[in-house]
């Protein structure tokens, strides 16, 4: 903190206070008026300014000379106001508080009240101490070695590294849940009901279409496997009927009692 001259020649009016020339400067307080604004910017708030005033007296916070500090503080506030320097409301709040403490200390107190009522200085001192601790902590923080100033991050080139992006993972339950949702919605839509067909028929439909792929046609009987037993044959049969109904296959008979032949409809299999 910069040192400032102790006093001014007392003939020069420093400012006008309440219409009267203000020439008396409290001890240890002189700041050139045009530097007041800059001076105020040095402080982060009223507690900081108060601390400064206290520290300049070289006294301990605990032994804070309330009346004196309050007077000095008020002079600053007054000066700022007179010079039309916009002052944060926080400074005025502090001024009011200091004035209150001072007046309370001047009032005679009944002896029995002493225990209950806290010393009005205590709260102020407590706050000053608390603030001072933080002020020093902030200064220590500023001194701590830190990134971008005292340390620099290092980086190596990784552009040559190929990264294979993993594909989303799906649980079967998610799939079933999705289908359940569809069923629920479908039930509500009267125009489209999902027939509760056995899944095996749908699967067989896929298999049969697959089988017909790349061939001109197959014998009807080739589409069945006896190893599957009766139910397998029924499934295959239902699948063939369903495929026929959906126009995906054609079933033909060259002549009466000839074997049935099944072929995929013309459109079907020129892709994949």
């Amino acid at each position, binding site marked *: 903190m910069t040192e400032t001259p102790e006093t001014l020649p007392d003939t020069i009016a420093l400012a006008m206070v309440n219409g009267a020339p203000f020439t008396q400067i409290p001890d240890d307080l002189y700041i050139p008026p045009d530097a007041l604004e800059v001076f105020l910017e040095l402080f982060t708030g009223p507690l900081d300014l108060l601390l400064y005033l206290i520290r300049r007296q070289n006294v301990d916070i605990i032994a804070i000379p309330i009346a004196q500090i309050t007077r000095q503080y008020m002079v600053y506030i007054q000066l700022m106001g007179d010079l039309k320097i916009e002052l944060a409301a926080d400074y005025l709040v502090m001024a009011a508080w200091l004035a209150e403490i001072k007046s309370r200390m001047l009032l005679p107190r009944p002896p029995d009240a002493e225990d209950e009522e806290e010393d009005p200085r205590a709260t102020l001192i407590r706050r000053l101490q608390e603030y001072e601790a933080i002020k020093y902590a902030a200064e220590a923080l500023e001194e701590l070695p830190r990134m971008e100033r005292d340390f*620099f*991050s*290092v*980086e*190596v*080139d*990784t552009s*040559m*590294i*190929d*990264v*294979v*992006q*993993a*594909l*989303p*993972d*799906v*649980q*079967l*339950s*998610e*799939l*079933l*849940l*999705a*289908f*359940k*949702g*569809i*069923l629920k*919605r*479908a039930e509500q*839509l009267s125009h*489209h009901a*999902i027939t*509760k067909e*056995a*899944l*095996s028929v*749908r*699967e067989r*439909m*896929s298999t049969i*279409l*697959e089988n*017909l*792929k790349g061939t001109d046609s197959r014998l009807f009987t080739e589409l069945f496997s006896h190893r599957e037993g009766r139910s397998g044959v029924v499934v295959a049969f239902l699948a063939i009927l369903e495929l026929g109904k*959906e*126009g*995906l296959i054609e079933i033909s008979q060259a002549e009466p009692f000839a074997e049935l032949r099944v072929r*995929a*409809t*013309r*459109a*079907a*299999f*020129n*892709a*994949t």
Partner: protein
Amino acid sequence: MELQRIIEAILFAAKRPLTCKQVQEVFPELEQPDLADIQAALDGLVEAYQPRGIALVKVASGYRFQVRSDLSRWVARLFEEKPPKYSKALLETLAIIAYRQPVTRGDIEDIRGVSVSSNMIQTLQEREWIRVLGYKEAPGRPALYGTTKLFLDYFNLSTLNELPTLQALQELDLPPITENSKERA
């Protein structure tokens, strides 16, 4: 040795390749080392990093540190992002194809009541979970989709019959899938 340490720090912090000349210019004017000394320091660094997991290499625009190529398969895993999640729409589409195959896109749209994007179909095809079984004899000759063997494998099914029947499905009490339950597992 001190010069080497400084240059080493500069190259690591630079985040871009630096030439000998550029390294020199990082030094204040009056303290700039000779290019020959810088080159010697760089050569020393290349040597010093020989046994290490990273290497100082010279590329077109200068010297840079990079991960050694024999280690890139380990490092690559650092950059693998968590796989994205499929949309509900995509799962529905896949479920319809699984249960109702062979189906056309139109069929899926009818069932879902909303249009199905080509993107979604493409994603499922790229994943090789669905394929075109054929084309339907109908205006526009729409493709008929079905699931693949890979689909069954992925979901650990040996046949589609292992999927719950519609009846069973409606009775099934599936826990809702939440983001968390999957990630924290």
